[in-house]
């Protein structure tokens, strides 16, 4: 076998390299800087790295070349790193989105004012809860500054995930993105047992899901004789033997990805992890992971298995319906804000899948009609901003025991803090899809593409589930504005530093602007074009 010297397109892969390199520098800081002095350098480094990567992404995006694929399909982009990384329009858009959300994540991670001068992360993760060691770490005001390099590694994985050009890279990206998140989930300063349980659960289930993904990759390799998406696509179009292998492979790969996006029936981890993880991590994870994993799902399904869509569309019909129904119905019976948001995110996964299954070939689309890919990308944008904003507000509402996430602590919040409650209500309305918020445009986009593709039964279910979902969103608004505060004491809004409040304001402005004037972002999504092979 001949050894080919790998060629890397450093310029195009710059965002990825900046983030992963920055993460390594972060680890070095952990190793060489004294404990008390690490915090500031880590925050500055993370912020600089994310901003730098964002700038690099924009630069790469504006200089994408025309690319002609194997099947003669043209598009702007580049298949780089020997076919492992594909930098095309959707990749650039997703990268920018993930980096913007990561910036929000860094800001929320760095918040110290809410806990009275320390971060939301435990002082010493290794100390058992309730022991002398934990108390000592807490009195010394220790901080785990490792969270910043971990965040950067997770971001690196997220960037790689939707850009992967073959199944192995995708698997590696999946692991790079997941492992730091497992750790981050277990690092809460308060309610540590809950947090550790969440991390454990996430890790075990995540490991299973990775196993499924790997098995699926093996089966698909057996079918196609290639792990690259272009190669698989050719094999699928040529119609190789052993169709069963392909179907089983698609199913198993989908399990791995659907677990990451939190679709039913693989949603069991979502509420526990969302609740147990430090809220800053939940916010970052809810937005970032969903964007990255949907990007990967889109690429896998559209590029590798595009010729086989009649086989996987029915599967997504079932999963989308299950996710929407389960998420919406179970969210009604929750009594904790974080769990409610978690179940609503399951429902949103279902709505996003409605968009994914609305794929049509170019010939079926009218002139000027937008594609399902554009719909899903836009929905991800709106969803991410609303989720980060909502979770950021959850970090503000506190009582003596830390964050007050139980419903009865939120009663009457609209009277004591109308601005914060109003902002939270606005995010909820956006998630509910009320017009003049970004969520409405997103919902409209995904529903329309599914309807155009003839999936009207799914759209009708989606609309039914939207009605159900509205009940719990509106009930929470009623709780905040029209219910008297609980006699045992209500949560109050703690003043935060500019880091958290700035994040909330940015998310608020984005949600409003995308609801009223979505045109520019929609144009951006349209100009991103289609996936290349």
């Amino acid at each position, binding site marked *: 076998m001949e050894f080919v010297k790998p060629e890397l397109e450093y310029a195009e892969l710059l965002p990825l390299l900046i983030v992963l390199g920055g993460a390594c520098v972060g680890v070095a800081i952990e190793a060489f800087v004294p404990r008390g002095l690490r915090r500031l350098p880590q925050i500055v480094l993370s912020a600089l790295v994310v901003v730098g990567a964002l700038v690099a992404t924009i630069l790469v995006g504006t200089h994408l070349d025309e690319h002609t694929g194997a099947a003669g399909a043209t598009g702007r982009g580049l298949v780089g790193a020997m076919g492992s990384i594909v930098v095309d329009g959707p990749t650039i858009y997703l990268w920018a989105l993930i980096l913007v959300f990561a910036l929000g994540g860094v800001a929320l991670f760095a918040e110290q004012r809410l806990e009275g001068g320390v971060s939301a992360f435990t002082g010493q993760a290794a100390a058992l809860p309730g022991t002398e060691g934990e108390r000592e770490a807490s009195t010394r005001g220790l901080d785990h500054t490792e969270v910043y390099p971990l965040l950067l590694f997770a971001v690196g994985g997220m960037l790689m995930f939707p850009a992967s050009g073959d199944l192995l890279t995708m698997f590696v990206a999946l692991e790079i993105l997941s492992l730091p998140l497992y750790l981050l989930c277990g690092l809460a300063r308060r309610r540590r047992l809950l947090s550790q349980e969440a991390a454990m659960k996430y890790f075990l289930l995540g490991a299973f899901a990775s196993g499924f993904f790997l098995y699926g990759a093996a089966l698909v390799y057996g079918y196609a004789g290639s792990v690259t998406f272009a190669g698989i696509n050719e094999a699928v179009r040529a119609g190789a033997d052993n169709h069963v292998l392909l179907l089983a492979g698609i199913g198993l790969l989908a399990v791995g990805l659907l677990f990451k996006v939190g679709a039913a029936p693989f949603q069991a981890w979502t509420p526990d992890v969302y609740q147990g993880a430090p809220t800053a991590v939940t916010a970052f994870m809810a937005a970032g992971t969903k964007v990255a994993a949907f990007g990967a799902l889109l690429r896998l399904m559209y590029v590798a298995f595009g010729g086989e869509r009649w086989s996987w569309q029915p599967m997504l019909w079932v999963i989308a319906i299950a996710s929407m129904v389960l998420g919406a119905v179970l969210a009604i019976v929750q009594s904790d804000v974080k769990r409610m948001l978690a179940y609503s995110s399951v429902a949103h996964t279902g709505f996003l899948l409605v968009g994914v299954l609305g794929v049509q070939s170019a010939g079926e689309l009218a002139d000027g009609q937008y594609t399902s890919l554009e719909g899903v990308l836009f929905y991800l944008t709106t969803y991410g901003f609303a989720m980060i904003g909502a979770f950021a507000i959850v970090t503000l509402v506190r009582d003596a025991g830390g964050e007050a996430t139980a419903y009865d602590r939120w009663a009457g919040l609209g009277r004591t803090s109308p601005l914060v409650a109003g902002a939270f209500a606005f995010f909820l309305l956006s998630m509910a899809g009320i*017009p003049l918020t970004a969520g409405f445009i997103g919902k409209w986009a995904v529903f329309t593409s599914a309807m155009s593709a003839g999936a009207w039964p799914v759209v009708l279910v989606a609309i039914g589930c939207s009605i159900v979902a509205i009940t719990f969103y509106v009930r929470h608004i009623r709780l905040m504005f*029209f219910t008297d505060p609980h006699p045992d004491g209500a949560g109050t809004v703690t003043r935060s530093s500019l880091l958290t409040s700035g994040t909330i304001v940015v998310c608020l402005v984005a949600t409003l602007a995308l609801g009223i004037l979505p045109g520019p972002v929609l*144009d951006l999504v349209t100009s991103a074009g289609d996936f290349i092979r």
Partner: protein
Amino acid sequence: MNDFPILSLLVWLPIAGAVAVALLPRHLAKVTGLGVALATLVIGVVVAASYELDGGTQLREEHEWIEAFGVHYALGVDGLALLLVLLTVLLVPLVLGAEWFKSDAEGSAGARAFFAWALALEGLSLAVFCATDVFLFYVVFEATLIPAYFLVGGFGREGRGAAALKFLMFQLAGGLILLASVIGLYVVSAQQGTPSYLLSDLQDLDIATGPGRWLFFGFFIAFAIKAPLFPLHTWLADTTEKATPGTGVLLVCILDKIGTFGMMRFCLGIFPEASQWATPLVVTLALISIVYGALVAIGQDDVFRLIGLTSLSHFGLITLGIFTMTSQGNTGAILYMVNHGLGTAALFLVAGYLSERRGTPLISRMGGLEKVTPVLAGLFLVAGLATLGLPGLSPFVSEFLVLMSAFQYAWYVGAIAITAVVLAAIYVLWMYQRTMTGPTPPEVEGTKDLGVREIAAVAPLVVALVFLGFYPAPLLDVSNPMVGDLMQQVGVHDPAPTVEHAGNETEEAH
């Protein structure tokens, strides 16, 4: 016609005013709010003055909004829209005047919030009436619910939170069903070329029979919840009972008109075939609403529930008028929308004064006020008589036109619909008798009659009711060309008269 975007000003001024009121200090908020509402009234009058009677849709504004979806920011008024715009700009300042002190009451969300939400509701409702793009219409149609929800939930009686939730759930459910149809329209429009949501483009679409009927149902259900129509009306009485009378006016007299407005503009305008196909069903529902609403209203003890349920009966008549598909019926329906707005608003506000004085909304606990407060009693009687359609007051004209078209449609439909007149007499006069007449109880001896502010808030309505009752020509002149265009779009002609004319060609109505 100049190019000044007067409709945009009309829509955006109250919305900007709402924001300003919310931010201003408390003592300035109320005056500013009323000032903005009056300024909007002036703009409404200017719009009416620059309106040309036979000009179709006018004062158009059209800008690309979301190009990818074929959505335009497009405004324009025709006869129907103009009348409802005028109704809206007239009612809002009156409501603000009537609620001047009440919205400060203990336990409510404060006058500033009331004024801000009311202005927001005004602006969004005006946008609904002026929108000539279905997507824009849908957006503002849904957005009106947010101020309405906070108005119901924040002000009024015990239990308003639950009532507001019920109201919102019903409306949002209807809105989402409508969303399905709006999406369907995009698909149909995209299949036939470039996707566009402009009403003028949609009217030219060639919608196949099957999908057309499904899309029609999405629109119709949403509007039937809004209007409301039996059996989707159950939110109405609960909401009017718990909300303040002013909110009741805004909801029943303005917001609910969107339902019947939408039936005319979208159901008949975009889906003429499906509308005609569905006529038997719609007429049946309308008849049930007419009779059932009136019967249930008779049995009410709460005056605001009673008024809410009379509106169910009235909306049944409006819907009936629309779906008889005759020009009399549709003209009558348009006039009915305006007159019902005037009459019911007067009734709500006066009933509000009444229950405020007696400290209870229950009819059985009132009585005997007539001698102590003659002005209040007199206005209550006039408003009540307008509601029952007394000749000489404007609702009579519209009711007459609708009933005439109902008889033209089928004699039994007319026969059932006409019971509304009898039943209305019962609920109105019986209510008046129980609340006003009888011996004056000692505890109400010192009750004050209406003050200047309270009279000023109702007087314009009474004047309009009387004036339009004797001289309805302005309303007819505005609505007739629009109805003519609509009937042409639907493709129906009025049935020829079965009785031969005695020579001259006088219109029977007036």
